């Protein structure tokens, strides 16, 4: 189904797009299997309508939103972003979505809300039951990261509604962080005072920190983060600090040692 009209965005890159076949066939969505093509094969079992997202926690007007209402929260934009996976591959994807800040403003966060937790859909009937990670998958952002204009909720890509394997019907996209921070198929968004636990940090804390900003200088224990392979290219290219979004986001981390807060 086509999504339109779409506003262009000043945040879009003009780099060459990764082919849609690659974007929709090479995915990490462990609920549907750990192989890269497993999500493409199995995600169709997930029912994405009806769908609601509960926005709860420290907010004056916390409430549950129907997916159809979420699509009308703000005008849909096309955001062409680089996506850098922690596994050292990358893509350029034309997302369709709207700023997460637009939704958060709707619920009027309280001053005590310092973090945002994301909980994703988990249905053991159709998804992985083995405890590879602690289901349901959870992620988190600091409130200023969540309110940042680059942070979007995506409902589509390539002008179409989001394919299930890419996190339908609604997912997070945080382009300056490793891909796993961008939680898929979100059902709960919770405003909290304390830093929420995140799925990969719980599974392997020495490898995946809460921040997980793309950072070529902070080595992953098991592979280099200095370079990456853009899907569709044969040679590696250097990885950019904050995935190339440093001008927009570096100020969020002023005074922080990013080797400690990795």
């Amino acid at each position, binding site marked *: 189904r086509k999504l339109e009209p779409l506003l262009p965005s000043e945040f879009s890159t003009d780099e060459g797009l990764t082919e849609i076949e690659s974007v929709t066939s090479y995915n990490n969505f462990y609920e549907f299997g*750990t192989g*890269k093509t497993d999500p493409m094969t199995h995600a169709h079992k997930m029912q994405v309508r009806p769908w609601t997202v509960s926005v709860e926690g420290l907010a004056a007007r916390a409430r549950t939103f129907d997916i159809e209402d979420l699509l009308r929260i703000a005008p849909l934009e096309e955001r062409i972003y680089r996506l850098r996976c922690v596994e050292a591959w990358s893509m350029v994807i034309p997302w369709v979505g709207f700023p997460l800040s637009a939704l958060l403003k709707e619920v009027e966060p309280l001053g005590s809300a310092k973090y945002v937790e994301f909980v994703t859909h988990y249905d053991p009937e159709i998804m992985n039951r*083995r405890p590879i*990670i602690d289901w349901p998958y959870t992620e988190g952002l600091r409130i200023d990261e969540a309110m940042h204009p680059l942070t979007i909720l995506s409902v589509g890509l390539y002008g179409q509604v989001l394919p299930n394997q890419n996190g339908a019907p609604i997912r997070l996209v945080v382009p300056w962080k490793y891909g796993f921070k961008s939680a898929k198929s979100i059902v709960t968004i919770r405003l909290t005072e304390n830093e929420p636990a995140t799925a990969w940090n719980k599974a392997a804390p020495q490898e995946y920190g809460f921040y997980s900003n793309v950072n070529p200088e902070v080595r992953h*224990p*098991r*592979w280099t983060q200095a*370079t990456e392979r853009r899907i569709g290219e044969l040679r*590696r290219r250097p990885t950019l600090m904050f995935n190339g979004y440093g001008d927009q986001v570096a100020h969020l981390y002023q005074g922080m040692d990013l080797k400690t807060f990795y």
Partner: protein
Amino acid sequence: MSSSSLLAGLRSPAPALLVAIRIAVFTACLAPALLLANEWFAMRLGANPIEAVTHATGDWALRMLLITLAVTPLRRFTGLHWLIRLRRMLGLFAFFYASLHFAAYVWLDLYFDWGAIALDILERPFITVGFAAFVLMIPLAITSTQGAMRRMGGQRWQALHRSVYGIAILAVVHYWWLVKADIREPLIYALILAALLGVRAWWREQERRRQLAAIPGSPSFKGKVIRIVPK
């Protein structure tokens, strides 16, 4: 052919049959490489073909290594002693796939970025053990000829080639440490390796007990020791 003569033919195959078996095994061992090359050139390896080649060649190196280690147990359990004559070829195929795996990493993946490669080997334990396994295979491949075996002498040659047990352990550890969370596949390889090494340990223990039970120096004992593992 009756079933008993078929069995007899299998127990000590005619030279022509053995040649046919060797050709068949050679072809079967080479097939994964040919199929992979075909998929590569037909661009059927998905969104990340370099990763696919690296993983496939690594998988086959490990499989060939375990198949090589299965020859001796298989031979003892079935009594098909000629299986030993396939072992060198199987071992060399393990080295062949390990070389392809290493080449895929050095050439396709990192494109001869020696700085990054050195850092990987020094600082990333899963690459350290994988690299060690590959390097340790080189002397085994070099000394795999009849001539080398003669020059070294059976004892020394055998001592050197026992390092294959350590290499196999390193290879499984390499795979285990590589996966992010789902250890099912490396676990299967680890269990097979444990069985292959375990049966050898068990034989060794049996042999030790047998030798302890025998009267030292008795003529019936002498010359009958089957050396499975060093004393």
